[in-house]
């Protein structure tokens, strides 16, 4: 058991890749079943993380470490805390659904497709468990390759443009982060005598942090650029709509479900504790950008004629919440952000899956092609409604918990911007419900829509876990908070901001 626990993360990370490698030996038509089985196995394995993680224990658990590149001070070290645990679970949870959802839509080069999906899972899991900045960077970049191919090969009409844009945007952002990582490693050598890119070592490095363009400030910007592009934060978001619209359903799901989370995760795991002063300096800059992203994303989403693009811009808006929650720099906001990442990883994939299902039936994503779909696809309509409600953050669904905490946190940090951000609540409802109405309600006039079939059993199986998760996460968020709260608190502690939680309590005591 000891051995099992200390290699579990490696197993979770690389099992999909190995599984995919074995899968290449199988006949073309059976690969999908093989891939599905693999993703289920990985998911079951990952549940061990939940049972094994003790929030009261060490900050990082399931640690494992081996020397990898001593020349660069790089170790192969993996570990996990409450934040990464949930994100890993999200990844392993989405993976079988994504594979199952592709059963019908993908017919061209199936083997490559499922191989890439599994390889992508390795990259994503790896990025979440890496405890070494360099290792993190490796996974971060390696993730791009499968995604690039998924968009570029199985994507829509403008897939090549979108794939290129996706790849280069992300790459450009992350390259400077690598320079910053090296710079930190070198600073570690100057201060402690040896090169190290290990995260826990770099936490200890002291850097000049006064002003916007101090050492910390510049390094923070290098990191923040990478993460902000990934999040994506206004105004660096323009790759997202293109990538989402062109990507195949599975690509969009993974992109929205997991890849965007990398940005938020990067902020809280890397940028915050490494550059506490710079974070405080840039706090309001990012709060402003995040608030703009919320409103801007919502407004632009409102006028999109394409369902996927609409959902994509809604991601910009939703991820704006994540950013302001994080930069509120208090535990309410940060916990809310992490939770919002999970929410967004549940509800947006559900929406993309459903758009994909419509697309598989009608081969169009134009909203105006639809209307009155409820009549022919009532069950689908129910599912779509629930996902929509989750997206508009109705209390009782997961979205509310995240947004509420984030806005509360942000309100404590900067009430003015929080007011701006809260208007997102209104516009969020506007664009989602408007789309819902145009697609689902109204008379069923388009003759092509009259013969649409309702959800098949397979599709229902894909959607049900997500819908259940939306409700469960909305009703019993504590189940999730219990395991992540201490981790968030510890990371915030490193940023050196002791938050003032109950001001009244203090005031009363003072009285």
């Amino acid at each position, binding site marked *: 058991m000891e051995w099992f626990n200390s290699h579990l993360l490696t197993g979770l990370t690389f099992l999909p890749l190995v599984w995919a490698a074995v899968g290449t030996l199988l006949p073309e038509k059976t690969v999908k079943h093989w891939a599905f089985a693999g993703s289920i196995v990985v998911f079951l394995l990952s549940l061990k993380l939940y049972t094994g993680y003790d929030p009261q224990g060490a900050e990082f658990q399931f640690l494992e470490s081996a020397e990898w*590149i001593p020349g660069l001070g790089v170790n192969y070290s993996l570990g996990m805390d409450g934040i990464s645990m949930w994100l890993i679970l999200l990844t392993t949870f989405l993976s079988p659904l994504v594979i199952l959802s592709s059963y019908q839509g993908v017919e061209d080069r199936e083997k490559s497709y499922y191989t890439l999906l599994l390889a992508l899972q390795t990259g994503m899991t790896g990025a979440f468990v890496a405890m070494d900045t360099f290792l993190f960077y490796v996974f971060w*970049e390696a993730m791009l390759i499968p995604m690039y191919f998924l968009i570029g090969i199985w994507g829509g009409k403008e897939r090549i443009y979108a794939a290129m844009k996706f790849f280069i945007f992300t790459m450009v952002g992350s390259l400077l982060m690598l*320079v910053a990582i090296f710079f930190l490693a070198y600073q570690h050598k100057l201060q402690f005598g040896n090169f190290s890119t290990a995260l826990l070592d770099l936490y200890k490095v002291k850097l000049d942090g006064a002003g916007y363009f101090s050492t910390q400030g510049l390094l923070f910007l290098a990191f923040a650029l990478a993460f902000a592009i990934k999040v994506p934060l206004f105004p660096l978001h323009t790759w997202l709509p293109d990538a989402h619209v062109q990507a195949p359903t599975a690509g969009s799901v993974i992109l929205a479900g997991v890849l965007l989370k990398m940005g938020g995760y990067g902020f809280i795991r890397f940028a915050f504790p490494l550059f506490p002063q710079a974070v405080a300096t840039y706090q309001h800059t990012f709060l402003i950008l995040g608030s703009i992203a919320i409103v801007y994303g919502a407004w632009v989403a409102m006028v999109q004629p394409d369902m996927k693009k609409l959902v994509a811009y809604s991601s910009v808006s939703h991820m704006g919440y994540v950013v302001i929650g994080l930069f509120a720099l208090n535990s309410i906001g940060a916990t809310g952000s992490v939770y919002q990442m999970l929410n967004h990883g549940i509800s947006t994939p559900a929406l993309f899956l459903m758009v994909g299902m419509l697309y598989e039936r009608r081969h169009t994503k134009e909203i105006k092609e639809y209307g009155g779909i409820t009549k022919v696809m009532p069950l689908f309509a129910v599912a779509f409604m629930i996902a929509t409600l989750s997206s508009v953050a109705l209390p009782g669904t997961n979205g509310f918990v995240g947004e509420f905490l984030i806005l509360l946190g942000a309100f404590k940090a900067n009430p003015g911007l929080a007011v701006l951000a809260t208007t997102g609540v209104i516009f969020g409802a506007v664009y989602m419900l408007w789309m819902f109405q145009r697609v689902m309600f109204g008379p069923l006039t388009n003759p092509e829509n009259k013969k649409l079939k309702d959800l098949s059993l397979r599709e229902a199986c894909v959607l049900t876990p997500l819908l259940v998760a939306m409700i469960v996460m909305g009703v019993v968020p504590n189940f999730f908070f219990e395991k992540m709260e201490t981790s968030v608190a510890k990371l915030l502690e490193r940023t050196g901001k002791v938050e003032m939680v109950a001001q009244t309590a203090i005031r009363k005591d003072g009285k």
Partner: protein
Amino acid sequence: MDKLNVIDPSFLTLSGDQLALLGPYFWMIGAALLAMIVGVIRFLPSKWTVFAVAMVGILGGLFVSANQIGMDRADLFGGMMVADGFSAFFNVLFLGTAALSLCASLKYLDKEKLQYPEYTILLLFSTIGMMLMASALDLITIFIALEIMSLSVYVLVGFRRNDRRSNEAAMKYFILGAAASAILLYGSALLYGSTGTFVITEILARISAKGDLMTPVFHLGAWMVLAGFLFKIASVPFHMWLPDVYEGAPTPITGFMTTGVKAAAFAAFIRVFVAFGYGKDLTSAVEGRLHDVLWVLAVATMFIGNVIALTQTNLKRMLAYSTIAHTGYLLVGMIAAPHAESGFAPVAMYLAVYTVMNLGAFAVLSVLAGRGDTGLNLHDLSGLGKRHPWLAFSLAIFLFSLAGIPPTAGFASKYYLLYSAIQAKEVWLVVLAVLCSAIAVYYYLRVLVYMYMREPQADTPSAKDFTPAAAAFAVAMMVAMTLQIGILPAKMMAITKRVVAKL
């Protein structure tokens, strides 16, 4: 005045140990001579006999060299030549390059109807020249080695004798190469004039002992020598010949040149670079300027190489420009090396990795090239992923590696290099380098776009062509190494660190 005792017996006698150190050279020279003999025996199938002889020689040398990597430094011929880990490392590199280029050439030559023993023999000779470049410690020996290599390569570039492009490329290469040789040689003369010796260790010793030896003439000489090397490694603005030559040369030779010739030039460059006391704070005033010059050249090289590569549609030419860009990265490593803990190790590693991945890419292109080196435009690759899945996969791996994306060798080595630059406090240089490599990503990926994301066009060869076994072997080896070094780079780093330790 006494009679001069010009004959030092120690020069004339080589001990058994020292002879053993020369093993790789003997293997190669023996193979070259034997190939010349068997190549003209009429009743032998020269294609296979010459190939076999050459491979035996190369592999023999490779085996011996590989065993020498860990050894200590041994001066030979009164310090004119050295056998140390560094030379052994590069010998392995050159011999490997030669072996794989030969494998990739086999089918190509049939296709081009160029199956002559001279090709193989010249390849062997040029490899010998490279090996000597990496181990020579004396300006004259370096020059002769350089010429052995260059003369053979000039001819190899023009080996498609009936092709105008090949002829033109050879001629251009020759004229500019000869002029550059002359410049290098003049530099050597000036160095000799200011220090009285050719042996580069001796030069270093003398200028270290007597600082006022570093006169303007010395610096002129040093710079002329460096300029000669900068020409060979094709740094901006001495790079103009490279794209034309690479495009015109037979594809396997282009691969051989981008890797072997370039690595050899860098090996000698490193030796000479060290000898001038650069980075050792001997001449702070000029050194600062030298640093500035190299800094500007490195940035210009990275930038120009990448932006022009962006505009190319011919794959060979695109890779030629990318070679220039990679030279820029290597120059970054050169600038940083004296100040970084790892020294020249990142440069050596980068060269090794670059050799692997670029040779692999050209091996794939050799297979894909139609008669007369046609069919290497981007649109000719449309749908390659379906026509030749494994070749396309290999090329994709090489291109990712060239672009520096994990988990490939190109990533590990590039960032080892940049890491050393950070240690040398060249943060802005590194920032510029990564921005340039971001530009590079675009044109590497564009190839993938054609291979995987476009359907085959009407005029692209549609049939699944047969991939020759030798070339397939070469490509497979390169893929394996690219991934292996990419995933576990530590061993390679340790080796390179060891071989540069006693430069």
